[in-house]
Each structure stands twice: as structure tokens, then as C-alpha cells.
């Protein structure tokens, strides 16, 4: 079990015990010590657990499992298992070029100061649309803004395989400035509309990537 979840369960149990004692013996509240315990049990601990729980949920929201748990995202998850490694998600996921358990988040978070916050806010908006709006079909989903090279260069800039690649050498300046998109050449991405029909990689062993 996640240590944070364990800590929250322990704090929750402590809160439960303190609250139960104070409810069963309300005369404790007449003493100063009782009032302090009540303040901790009824105010500090519940808010602390809620704050830590929020942090745990936000951390959870970075997981690949979380992202592909909505059915509109399933084809995007499937694209990471395409057998054809010319598809970027498949190559990155299957070769562990990003942490497999943070696969979506690694490429779809803007690497800016408020990139995390923006991603979370958009995520909440998506949840709202999923339940109360009209979610798009998987093949119709588009990014809000064109995909920025910055998200690729966050990892690839400085890497020998990127810097010395003969296709990159002459256009490194333009790539860095975003004048040429990485996706102009690396255009095989999620192919969500065809994801169900494309052959998938079957890992040996227990199937874990």
C-alpha cells in the first residue's frame, strides 16, 4: 500500500478514536486539555487528512492507469502497445523512455511553472464534460493547442541520439525555437481511430511493461 495512503488511514483512525472518546465523554470538554484535543480531533486532523488526501489524489492523477480509466481514453492507452514502434507512444512506452506508470503525464504536461496546475484544471474540466456534457469520440479528440517541441526537448535536448542525429543537425535551431514541429516528421502518434485494428505487442512473461 502507498505510504501516504497508509499514513492517511492511520491519521483517520486516530481522528475516529479521539472523536469517539469526546462524544462518549463530553464532560472532557470542560477541561482545557479536552478542548485542545477536541480542536485537534474536530479541526486539525480532518483538515490535515483532507489536504493530504487531495495531494494523494493529485499524485494518483498522474498515473497511466488513471488516464486510461475513462473509456474515451482507452484507444490512446492501446496506442502505447502498438507493435509498430514507428508510433511515438509505443516506442516511448515499450522502451521505457518515460516512466511507464507516468506515460501520459510525461508527454502531456506543459513543462512550465504552472504546467501541472493547468493539466489538473483541464483534467477537472474533462471529468465535468465526461459526466455532464457530450464527450467526443476517441478519434475526434484534439489538443487545445498545437503540441510544443518543448515537451519533447524536455528530455531529448542534449541527448546524443537527438543532437547528433543527421536529420536534426541542420535544423536544431529551428526545432529549439519551435519554428519546425517535431511532429512534422514524427507524425505517427496515437492513431486512436484505428487503434483497435492495429497489431499489438504481446510482452512475454506476466505482461508487465
Amino acid at each position, binding site marked *: 500500500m502507498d505510504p501516504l495512503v497508509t499514513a492517511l488511514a492511520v491519521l483517520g483512525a486516530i481522528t475516529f478514536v479521539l472523536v469517539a472518546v469526546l462524544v462518549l465523554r463530553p464532560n472532557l470538554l470542560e477541561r482545557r486539555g479536552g478542548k485542545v484535543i477536541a480542536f485537534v480531533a474536530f479541526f486539525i486532523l*480532518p483538515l490535515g487528512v483532507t489536504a493530504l*488526501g*487531495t495531494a494523494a489524489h493529485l499524485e494518483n492523477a498522474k498515473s497511466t492507469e488513471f488516464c486510461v480509466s475513462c473509456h474515451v481514453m482507452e484507444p490512446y492507452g492501446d496506442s502505447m502497445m502498438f507493435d509498430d514502434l514507428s508510433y511515438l507512444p509505443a516506442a516511448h512506452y515499450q522502451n521505457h523512455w518515460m516512466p511507464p506508470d507516468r506515460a501520459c503525464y510525461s508527454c502531456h504536461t506543459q513543462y512550465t511553472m504552472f504546467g501541472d496546475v493547468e493539466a489538473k484544471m483541464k483534467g477537472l474540466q474533462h471529468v465535468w464534460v465526461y459526466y455532464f456534457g457530450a464527450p467526443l469520440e476517441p478519434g475526434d479528440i484534439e489538443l487545445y493547442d498545437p503540441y510544443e517541441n518543448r515537451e519533447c526537448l524536455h528530455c531529448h535536448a542534449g541527448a546524443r541520439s537527438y543532437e547528433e542525429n543527421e536529420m536534426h543537425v541542420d535544423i536544431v535551431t529551428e526545432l529549439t525555437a519551435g519554428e519546425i514541429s517535431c511532429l512534422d516528421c514524427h507524425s505517427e502518434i496515437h492513431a486512436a481511430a484505428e487503434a483497435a485494428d492495429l497489431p499489438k505487442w504481446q510482452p512475454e512473461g506476466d505482461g508487465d511493461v
Partner: protein
Amino acid sequence: MSETTPAEAKSSDRATAEGPRLAHRLRLSAVLIVIGLAVEIATLAWAHPTAFLAFAGIGGLLVAAGVALYLWTVLRFTSGAAVSS
């Protein structure tokens, strides 16, 4: 010297009258907080957007209501005592 003044007697009467109400509100606050925390902790076992909605929309609201009720009860009781004294 140990005689109770009218103001003290009034305060004592008021405390006696408010005692059960205070206990009742604390019990209600406790129930809200405990159920809210249970919901919050339970949702952490599930990696799905619905889990976050349940965490914030059910657990968070119950805990917030419980904490608000506790604070309101304490403030009301304290201010009542202050007024009485």
C-alpha cells in the same frame, strides 16, 4: 461569600440548558467528520476520476460540514458563556 450571584446562576442555568444541545451538535459534527474521512480514505484505493469526485464532492463536503458545525458550536457556546459572564 460562596453564594451564587444572579449572573452566575443565570450563566449556570444557561450552560445546563445548552449542555445537551452542545453534545448533540458535537455528535452530529463527529458523525459528519467520521463518514467524510471514511469516504475520503476509501476513494484513495481507486485510480479513477470518479474517485476524485467522490473524494471532493462527498468526503470533502461532509468533512467541511462537520468542521464548520464544530466551529460554529464552539463559537456559539463560547460567545454565549462570554455574554452570560
